[in-house]
């Protein structure tokens, strides 16, 4: 009797340590009684079946492994809890100056002022919150390849809402390089920002017409980076010195910026037939603004650098005028010096 009692006690202790959180005193144990069952679902208003199962292995692998369910789902104070719990407020921990070790920074304020944050504040039902991009129970660092915000997954994450943009981007030169794992290739957030994403019409947006040249030139003016891919960095300077570039600088937003010609998400190398700046497509691309655009628009370089010998006749003519003006200045200044000298000599001579 005494022996069987001891065996039962040992078995219970072993069970305690081997049968997971649901069978233990872990603070989440009670939650997992229900949420630990893979077939735990609920039918929501539109008839869709929503899984309420929480895969603990995902939580354990996430950056929040050390936290318990109620640290985030703080409104749950008793079980059973009410249905339709409010969305978890990440700002419970994620605020500037927090003491629990959550990342510090301006991202919380940036989100509030972003197009997503403003939509959320306005009560729009589809407005994305932290969880829509970062995930829920499986939140991982952006350096983790499994994270929805890792370089490789950002397009898909944004594409959950921005379907066409994501699809266009994935096929583009930038997107295809991202898929290949190229760490230099830009992702959605490289151009749009992360938490501070703003409406294109917002002057503070990185993709506002006035800011597009700066946004693109962050990479395209970097000689060490562009040289690796055979892309010229003079394109930025030549654009800035063009009518379009000057007009943009002086606030004429209707003037063409980089994306007006090269496309937005669907950017391809000029040699690609799908590219809007492919020689065949240039009349159509220019025709978006210049109604009379024809094949002449494609007869000549688009980004003309008069200081580059590859500009051909333009380079030689620019050089001709440069040296003609220098010669003119030298000869005429010399003429003035000699003239003044002669007048002074004549004046000094006695009558």
């Amino acid at each position, binding site marked *: 009797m005494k022996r069987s009692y001891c065996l039962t006690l040992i078995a219970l202790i072993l069970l305690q340590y081997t049968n997971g959180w649901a069978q233990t005193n872990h603070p989440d144990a009670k939650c997992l009684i229900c949420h630990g069952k893979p077939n735990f679902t609920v039918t929501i208003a539109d008839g869709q079946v929503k899984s309420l199962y929480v895969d603990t292995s995902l939580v354990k692998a996430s950056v929040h492994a050390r936290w318990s369910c109620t640290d985030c789902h703080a409104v749950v104070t008793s079980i059973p809890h009410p249905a339709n719990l409010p969305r978890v407020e990440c700002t419970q921990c994620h605020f500037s100056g927090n003491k629990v070790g959550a990342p510090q920074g301006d991202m919380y304020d940036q989100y509030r002022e972003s197009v997503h944050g403003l939509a959320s504040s306005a009560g729009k039902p589809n407005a994305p919150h932290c969880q829509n991009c970062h995930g829920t129970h499986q939140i991982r660092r952006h350096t983790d390849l499994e994270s929805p915000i890792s370089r490789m997954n950002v397009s898909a994450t944004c594409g959950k809402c921005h379907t066409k943009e994501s699809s266009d981007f994935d096929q583009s030169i930038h997107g295809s390089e991202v898929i290949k794992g190229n760490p230099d290739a830009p992702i959605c957030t490289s151009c749009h920002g992360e938490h501070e994403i703003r409406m294109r019409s917002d002057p503070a947006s990185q993709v506002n017409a006035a800011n597009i040249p700066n946004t693109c030139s962050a990479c395209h003016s970097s000689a060490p980076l562009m040289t690796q891919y055979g892309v010229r960095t003079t394109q930025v300077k030549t654009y800035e010195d063009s*009518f379009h570039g*000057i*007009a943009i*600088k*002086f*606030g*004429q937003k209707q003037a063409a910026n980089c994306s007006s010609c090269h496309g937005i998400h669907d950017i391809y190398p000029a040699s690609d037939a799908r590219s809007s700046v492919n020689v065949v497509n240039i009349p159509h691309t*220019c025709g978006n603004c*210049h109604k*009379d*655009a*024809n094949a*002449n*628009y*494609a*007869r*000549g*370089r*688009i980004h*003309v650098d*008069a200081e580059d010998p590859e500009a*051909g*006749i*333009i380079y030689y*003519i*620019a050089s*001709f*005028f*440069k040296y*003609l*003006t220098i010669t*003119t*200045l030298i000869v*005429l*200044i010399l*003429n*003035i010096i*000699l*003239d*003044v*000298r*002669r*007048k*002074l*000599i*004549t004046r000094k001579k006695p009558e």
Partner: protein
Amino acid sequence: MTEETVQRFSVGWRLQHLILALGVTGLAASGLAIRYYATPYGKFVLGMLGGISACGLFHRIFALTLGIATIWHIFMILFTREGHEDFLALMPEKGDKTRWLKAIHSKLTGGEYEAEWGRYTFGQKVQYWMVATGVLLMIATGSILLFGHRSIAFLPKWLVDTVRVVHGGQGVELMAFLILWHLYSTHFAPGRFPMARSWINGKITLSELKLYHKREFRKLFPNRPAE
């Protein structure tokens, strides 16, 4: 006692010169601001005029002024006796080259040679032809640029780009030329400063005529000593 003068330029010439000067000055000021928009000068002018579009509009208005002066000039040459004679006087003539080379040699060596010029010195003739051809080139290229992108509908883009380079290059060259030669020789040179007033009253004193245009003096006053 007021020195005796002769009428050198008629009201028509002076008015035409004034319109030309206004046009060229305005074109140079606005054109340089557009070309060098990022310099303090460019920023100042563009700020004053209200941006690059406004500056472009001023440039076109001054271009119109230059166009009027040019058409008037061609009309005078073709249809007036005065214009025709002056135009012929601006043609290079026999002996110009020799006199000019001697004058340069004298200037370089500090010699005393004074060339005897007719109505116009060789330097004035060069200035006229440089400005005339320069202005015609500026009008031709400017007319293409005036229509902006619409020009590309008729001309290949590389040609329009070339025209833009020619227009800018010739504009700067012309300005350097006008300031360092024309303005210097007629206004700032020793003996001329602050200006030769003939561009205002059209007159030249007999001593100046004798000094700078001795053959013209002899032609106008055959009975007076030229030395």
